[in-house]
C-alpha cells in the first residue's frame, strides 16, 4: 500500500505535516502530494537509496551498550522530512537567541558578583548544591563575556501547537553533524523536491562555527589555530568530532597531543615540533579537562589547561563551568532569568515544571507520579528518568524513595503529548513523536541553525527520541511558502 493521506491518523496529537486526515498543512502540501503519488516500489527505492547514501557516506553513531566490534552503526534515518514554515521559525529563532543571551549573562554573573543570587531571584542553595558549578571559574573573564558558545536546546510541540523549550544543553551538545548529513542524504535522494521547494540551506554551520571560535583567539594572527579536542574514537560522538574538525579545517586532537608549557601557553605536538594552539573546541566534560584541577585520574585532559585558560592564553569553548546553567532545576528558573537580565518577557515558554526541592511541589510530585515525567537534574541522553504513566508501581515507589532522599536532584513535568510527523513504516506513513534540537552559536555575533536536528521515536507510541535509545532522525526543512 502506498501512502494514502486519508488513512493517516494522528489523533490526539499535533501533527507537523497533516492538519487532519487527507489535509496537509500549507507548507507541507507539495511534499505530501509528491509522496502520495509514489507507489510501493518507488517508496522502497527512495528508502534504500537513503540507506545506501548513509552507508557510503559513513554516517555512523555509537551505542555504548553494544559489545566490541559494533561501535559503528548506520545512522537511523527517515526519508520523510519535517517541515516548518519560515515565518514560524523566525519567531522561534528570536526566542532562542533571547534565551541563550540571558543564560550567558546568568553564567557570567554567577562567576562574578552573583547579583541574581543576592537579589533572591535564584535561590543561593541551588548554586551551592549544583554539580556543575565550578568554584575554579570565579572571576574569570572569557572573551565577549560569553561562556556557552555552542548551545543545543531541545524544543517540543504540545497538543495545541505551542512550541516549548524542553531543556538547554550547554556542556557539550552534540548532533549538529547529523543535521548537516541528513540534508546531504536528502539532496542525493530527492533532488526533484529541492527544485520545487525553497528550502533554506543549513550547510554554512561549519563556517559559522569556525568564525565563532576563531573570534575567541586573543593572539593576533591571520588564522588562529583552532582545534577540536575529542576523548577519542570510542566516544559516542567521535563521528561528529571528526566531521566538524574536517569541515572547519581544524586539527582533531586528543589530550595527549597537547601540552602546556611553563609559559602557560598550550601547544600541540606535531612532527614539526610544538605548535601553539589558540582556541580549543572541547568535546570532553569539565571534570576531565585538567587533572591538575579536576579529576586527577583523567587520561583525556591536559595538565595545566585551566592555568592557560585563566591567563587568557587559550580559549575554551564551551567555557568550563557553563554546565551550571544546563541543570534541569536551573531550567525552571530560565523565564525569571530572562526577565531579570533582559527585562523582557520570554518569547519561548518553558514546559511547566515542579521542583522537588520545594516542599509543596515535592508533595504534588510524589502524589502524582503516575502522571508525571521525573528527570534527574544532571543526566543527559535520556538516562535515569521516570516516565510515570509507563512505569510499574514498583518502579514508581523506588523513584519516590530517590526523590525523598535527594530532592535537589529531581524535577518533574507533566507528560507532554509530543507532536508527531508522518514516518515511513514499511510502505505507508505512520505518526511518530519527535522533537527538535537547534544549535545556537554565541560569540561576537549570535547565530541559530536553520531548523536543527529533528529526532524521532521510531517505535510506535514511544516518546524517547535519543539515538542511544532507539531513536532516529529526519531532515528538517525551513521553507518559504507564499501565503504564510
Amino acid at each position: 500500500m502506498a501512502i494514502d493521506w486519508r488513512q493517516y491518523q494522528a489523533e490526539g496529537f499535533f501533527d507537523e505535516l497533516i492538519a487532519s486526515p487527507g489535509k496537509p498543512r500549507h507548507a507541507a502540501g507539495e511534499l505530501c502530494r509528491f509522496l502520495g503519488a509514489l507507489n510501493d516500489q518507488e517508496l522502497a527505492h527512495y528508502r534504500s537509496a537513503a540507506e545506501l547514501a548513509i552507508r557510503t557516506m559513513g554516517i555512523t553513531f555509537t551505542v555504548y551498550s553494544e559489545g566490541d566490534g559494533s561501535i559503528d552503526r548506520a545512522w537511523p534515518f527517515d526519508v520523510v522530512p519535517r517541515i516548518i514554515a519560515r515565518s514560524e521559525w523566525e519567531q522561534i529563532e528570536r526566542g532562542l537567541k533571547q534565551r541563550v543571551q540571558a543564560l550567558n549573562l546568568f553564567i557570567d554573573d554567577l562567576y562574578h558578583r552573583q547579583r541574581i543570587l543576592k537579589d533572591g531571584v535564584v535561590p543561593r542553595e541551588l548554586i551551592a548544591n549544583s554539580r556543575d558549578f565550578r568554584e575554579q571559574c570565579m572571576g574569570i573573564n572569557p572573551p565577549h563575556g560569553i561562556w556557552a558558545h555552542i548551545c543545543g536546546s531541545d524544543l517540543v510541540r504540545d497538543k495545541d501547537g505551542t512550541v516549548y523549550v524542553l531543556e538547554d544543553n550547554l556542556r557539550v551538545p552534540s548532533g549538529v553533524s547529523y543535521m548537516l548529513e541528513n540534508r546531504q542524504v536528502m539532496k542525493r535522494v530527492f533532488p526533484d523536491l529541492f527544485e520545487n521547494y525553497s528550502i533554506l540551506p543549513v550547510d554554512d554551520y561549519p563556517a559559522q562555527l569556525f568564525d565563532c571560535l576563531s573570534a575567541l583567539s586573543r593572539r593576533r594572527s591571520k588564522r588562529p589555530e583552532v582545534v577540536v579536542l575529542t576523548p577519542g574514537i570510542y566516544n559516542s560522538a567521535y563521528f561528529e568530532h571528526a566531521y566538524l574538525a574536517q569541515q572547519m579545517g581544524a586539527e582533531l586532537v586528543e589530550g595527549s597531543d597537547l601540552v602546556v608549557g611553563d609559559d602557560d601557553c598550550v601547544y600541540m605536538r606535531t612532527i614539526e615540533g610544538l605548535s601553539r594552539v589558540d582556541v580549543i573546541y572541547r568535546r570532553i566534560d569539565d571534570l576531565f579537562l585538567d587533572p591538575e584541577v579536576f579529576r586527577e585520574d583523567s587520561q583525556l585532559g591536559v595538565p595545566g589547561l585551566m592555568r592557560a585558560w585563566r591567563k587568557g592564553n587559550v580559549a575554551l569553548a564551551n567555557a568550563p563551568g557553563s554546565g551550571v546553567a544546563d541543570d534541569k532545576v536551573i531550567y525552571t528558573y530560565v523565564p525569571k532569568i530572562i526577565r531579570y537580565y533582559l527585562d523582557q518577557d520570554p518569547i519561548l515558554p518553558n514546559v511547566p515544571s515542579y521542583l522537588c526541592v520545594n516542599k509543596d511541589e515535592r508533595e504534588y510530585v510524589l502524589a502524582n507520579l503516575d502522571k508525571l515525567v521525573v528527570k534527574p537534574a544532571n543526566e543527559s541522553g535520556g538516562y535515569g528518568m521516570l516516565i510515570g504513566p509507563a512505569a510499574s508501581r514498583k518502579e514508581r515507589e523506588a523513584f519516590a524513595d530517590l526523590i525523598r532522599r535527594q530532592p535537589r536532584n529531581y524535577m518533574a513535568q507533566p507528560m507532554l503529548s509530543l507532536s508527531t510527523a508522518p514516518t515511513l513504516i514499511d510502505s505507508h506513513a505512520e505518526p511518530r513523536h519527535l522533537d527538535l534540537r537547534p544549535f545556537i552559536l554565541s560569540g561576537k555575533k549570535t547565530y541559530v541553525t536553520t531548523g536543527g536536528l529533528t529526532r524521532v521515536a521510531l517505535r510506535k507510541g514511544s516518546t524517547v527520541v535519543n539515538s542511544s535509545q532507539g531513536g532516529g532522525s529526519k531532515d528538517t526543512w525551513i521553507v518559504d511558502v507564499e501565503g504564510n
Partner: protein
Amino acid sequence: MLSRVAERIYWMGRYLERAENTARLINVNTLLLLDLPKGVSLGWQPLVDIMGSTEQFAEHFTEASERNVVRFLIADEKNPASLLSSLKFARENARTVRDTLPGEGWERINDLFLKAKADLPSGLARGRRYDNLVEAIAACQQITGMLAGTMLHNEGYDFLRIGRNLERADMTTRIIDVRTAYVGTSVPGVELEPFLHAQWLSLLRSISAYQAYWLKVQAPVRRQEVLEFLFKERQFPRSVLHCIGEVAGAIERLPRNVVPLTTAGKLAAHLDKRRVSRMDDAAVHAFVDRLQLKLSQLHESIAATYFQFATMDARLRSGRKRKSAAATAGN
C-alpha cells in the same frame, strides 16, 4: 601533522606489511619442507624463534608441531605477532586515522581483518592454508596499491612508506634467516646437496622474487647470487637495501630529519659494503641479527624525532631554551 597521527599511520603501514610477510614466511616454510628429502624432518620451532616469539609460544604449547606453530603464527589473537593480530592492530590504527585515509582504505583494511578472522582458523590444514595465505597476501598488496594510488602523498604518506619499508626490510632478513637456519643443519646419512637448488628456488618464489631475479641476474639460481640479490639489489622492491633507500627517501621529505636521515644513511652504507655472498650460513645468521638490531635503531631514531616528546617537552620547561626549539622547528 600531529605526531600521534603520524605514529599511527606508521604503525598501520608496519602491521599491514607484517601481516603480508608473516603469511609469506609460513608459505616459505611449508614449501621448504616439501622440497626436503623424505626422512629429514626439521620441524617448525625455528619459525617461532625467527619471529621472536619463543617465550610466548612456550607459554601456550609444549610441542612445536606443524599444527601448533601454524595455529600460533596465523590465527592466535593472544600472540601479538600472529598474522591475525597484525591485521587487528593495522585495523585499530587505521580506525584512529580514518579521516586521513581515503574512505575505501579504512573499509578494505576493516574487511580484510573481518574476513581473515572468519576464514583463517578453519583453513589451517596444509591444502587450504596455502590458498588462504596467498589470498591474504594479495589483499594486503591491494591495500598498499590502493593507498599509493588514492592517498594524498603528504607527510602521512611518507610515514606510511617508512613503516612499510622498515617492516619489509626486517621481514626479508627473517625470511632469509629461515632458509639459512635449515641449511646449517646437517642430517646424518642424507646428502642435502641435490636439494639446494630447489630450495633457493622456492625461497625466491615465495617472496615473488623469482622472475625479478631471473631478469636481473640472468644466471642460474645459486646461493651467492640469491643472497646478494635479496640483501642488496636496489631495483628489487623487497631487498633490504632497496627498502632502506625507500625509508631514507621518505625521511628526506620530512622536517627536522638530520638524525634519522644520518642513521638511515649509515645503515645503507654498512649493508652496501658487506660482501654477503661470501658469508657462510653462520655468518649470514649473525649478520641478520646485527642488521635487525640496526633496523630497530633506525626505528628508535624516527620515533624519538617525530613521535616522542621527552626532548621537545623538556625544552618547553625552560624559557631560555625555547628559542632553540623554535629554530629547530623551522628548519
